[in-house]
């Protein structure tokens, strides 16, 4: 009785097992393909972002370069104006009258000392990362003065 039942059932069981095997193979194959597609999409997005980033950096570098050239040109022009125009003319005017060079007719020692104290006691130094760090060597003492 059991043997007869088994003989009738086993072809069906075989078909079911075969169908399950095919389904599992399709599932595995699809999962592998999907993983590949996800990885390819990720790589495409990464390449696209990197390319956008390079372009953005280049645009910014061009802007910064233009700004730096503008600042250097103006800075140099101001230094040149002082050296070749303002200072020679001022020196000429100052030498017209001897009283202007007479220490006895100038400011007092106390005033000069206070003016010199007004020069800020700030020390600035370049850092390895390109930034500049400024500090007051003795901020407490400077505040007490």
């Amino acid at each position, binding site marked *: 009785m059991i043997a007869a039942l088994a003989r009738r059932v086993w072809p069906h069981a075989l078909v079911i097992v075969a169908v399950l095997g095919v389904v599992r193979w399709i599932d595995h194959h699809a999962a592998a393909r999907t993983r590949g597609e996800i990885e390819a999409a990720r790589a495409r997005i990464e390449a696209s972002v990197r390319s*956008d980033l390079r372009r953005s950096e280049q645009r*910014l570098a061009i802007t*910064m370069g233009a700004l*730096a050239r503008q*600042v250097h040109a103006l800075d140099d022009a101001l230094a040149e104006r002082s050296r070749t125009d303002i200072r020679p003319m001022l020196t000429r005017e100052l030498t017209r009258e001897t009283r202007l060079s007479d220490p006895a007719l*100038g*400011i007092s020692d106390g005033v*000069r000392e206070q003016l010199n104290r007004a020069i800020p006691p700030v020390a600035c130094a370049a850092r390895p990362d390109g930034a500049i760090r400024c500090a007051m060597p003795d901020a407490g003492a400077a505040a007490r003065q």
Partner: protein
Amino acid sequence: MPAPLPANDVATLALKLEETLTLLGRCAVRHAGAVNAYVAAREAAMRWNEGER
């Protein structure tokens, strides 16, 4: 920083004033450059964040 005043006479004072004024002008130009660079970098960062790449 500028060097201290070496003497008391008006001529020295006037020359130091000229030096200080020139340095002030140059400092203003450099400050403007630093501010403009910051603004340009900030705008670039904002454009990037808004997806304008």
